């Protein structure tokens, strides 16, 4: 059970609340432009638009004229012991200047080493050495991009024996040390909790609410003795429940539905997004938050 949130940290109206968004995916480009669905914002995968031109940029421009956009990267590799990839960062800054996203996020992880990219979000050990290393790199990236980074907790399938901090403690320290913000992926919390045998509510209790900029929700695959973060099916009931708990604790936070595989028609995702809206409304009316604006 979480301790009470101190009065000074009680959920407040969130001026950066964009509402309820969807991950922008290629099969939906045309329909978004023709139907103008009720989506409050779209999130782009930054790397998908780090190309010179063509359809990706055409649709990005057209959709960006109608909807707020946020950028979400998968290759920053903020925790890697490799040097920062300045060529990548240059492209990221160029795209960011063009898109003018409400914020720009990536993951607390490393993706490659010795110049080889795994294209996976690999876990970091939660040690003092890793914290110092990541904090230094976050500061460099933020200075270069001239904006705070928003970093997401990833789903993990292994933990390091040498870790001395819990994941949420690491995130809190990092945010306090660097001014970066947190993208709280509720599904990832649930997946990691099941895979490592901790209570996901402990994560919510441990994370400092004022660092949270955005929430992600997605589906996972249940393999019985472990879960895989597949983003290929609707959000599980247990994740919805954890989301409701998060909102009761943190207040209104921009929430995004991710779907990356087995992508259904846009109408199905809009219906799922509306379920998220409803749960948010119900949770916030039950919680400690006094002002809720949608």
């Amino acid at each position, binding site marked *: 059970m979480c301790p009470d949130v101190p009065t000074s940290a009680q959920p407040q109206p969130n001026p950066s609340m964009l509402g309820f968004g969807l991950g922008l995916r290629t099969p939906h480009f045309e329909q978004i432009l023709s139907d103008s669905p009720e989506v409050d914002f779209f999130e782009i995968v930054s790397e998908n638009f780090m190309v010179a031109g063509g*359809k990706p940029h055409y649709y990005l421009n057209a959709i960006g004229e109608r909807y707020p956009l946020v950028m979400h990267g998968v290759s920053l590799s903020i*925790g890697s012991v490799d040097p920062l990839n300045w060529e990548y960062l240059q492209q990221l800054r160029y795209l960011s200047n063009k898109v003018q996203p409400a914020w720009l996020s990536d993951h607390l992880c490393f993706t490659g080493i010795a110049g080889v990219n795994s*294209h996976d979000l690999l876990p970091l050990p939660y040690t003092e050495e890793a914290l110092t290393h990541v904090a230094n790199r976050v500061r460099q990236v933020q200075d270069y991009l001239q904006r705070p980074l928003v970093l997401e907790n990833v789903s993990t399938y292994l933990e390091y024996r040498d870790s001395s901090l819990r994941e949420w403690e690491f995130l809190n320290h990092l945010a306090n040390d660097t001014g970066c913000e947190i993208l709280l992926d509720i599904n990832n919390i649930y997946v990691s909790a099941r895979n490592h045998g901790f209570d996901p509510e402990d994560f919510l209790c441990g994370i400092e609410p004022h660092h949270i900029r955005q929430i992600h929700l997605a589906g996972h695959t249940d393999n019985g003795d472990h879960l895989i973060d597949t983003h290929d099916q609707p959000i599980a009931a247990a994740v919805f429940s954890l989301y409701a708990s998060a909102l009761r604790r943190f207040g209104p936070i921009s929430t995004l539905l991710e779907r990356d595989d087995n992508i259904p028609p846009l109408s199905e995702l809009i219906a799922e997004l509306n379920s998220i809206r409803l749960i948010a409304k119900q949770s916030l009316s039950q919680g400690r938050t006094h002002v809720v604006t949608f």
Partner: protein
Amino acid sequence: MSSLSELQHSLFNSILNNEDCTGSLSWIADKGTLSVSQRASIYRSAYNIRLYETLTNDFPQLFKYLGDAQFHKLAQYYIVQQPSQHPSLRYFGDALPGFLKANSPYKDFSQLFDLALFERCLQTAFDAKEAPYLTIHNFDAISTQQWPKMCLEVHPSVNLIQLTTNAVPIWMALKEDKTPPDMIQQSTTWLIGRGSSRLTYFRSLTQEAEQLLKALINGQPLASALEPYLNNDLTQKQQLEKLHKDIDSFLQDGVISCVEIKL
């Protein structure tokens, strides 16, 4: 206690190493329902699946041509030999055509290189840099007297490739889920680009059109690009008509981006 660098190398080695390396996984916390070996194998499987799916998505007709088993064998070989070094998976397949050309047994089947190169060039045209398209209307407004001084700038999506087999007819049959023709040696130059409707196009070129386009790509003024049209038995009027026809085709396809008159 291991350093951050040691731990990252340990995880990465366990991903790249396809063998079960249980003995070297002592850095993983051993708790819960999964063994440390199972935990490491989740990352190893994800790595292979992700890269394999990238290749099947980026080379759909090569995948069909080889079939599941052979393509899987090729992909596993390629994944080991050419690990991704770019932040985006978009570029992972860039080296596949060259890999097929250089390695046995694939190098003995030249249509594989041609198919892979063709599919890669379609992708390159798809997301190439933006540029305007010169219309026939705008081109026709230019006096023919100014033609010799004209420089026609080629659209950045345009690519010329020389294939030695009938890989494109094979590709077209596969795309329509038809039985592909037998491979034959057939040297053809193919023009690939992206038109004003943002759709990718391709077509074969005559020798004259190929030389003209190469000259334009090299930035030569039209006067010096005309040579291939002069070396035949046609009258001057017929030569000009042939040239005009090829330029019209380029304009219709979206090959030409803009025109500059050199004074």
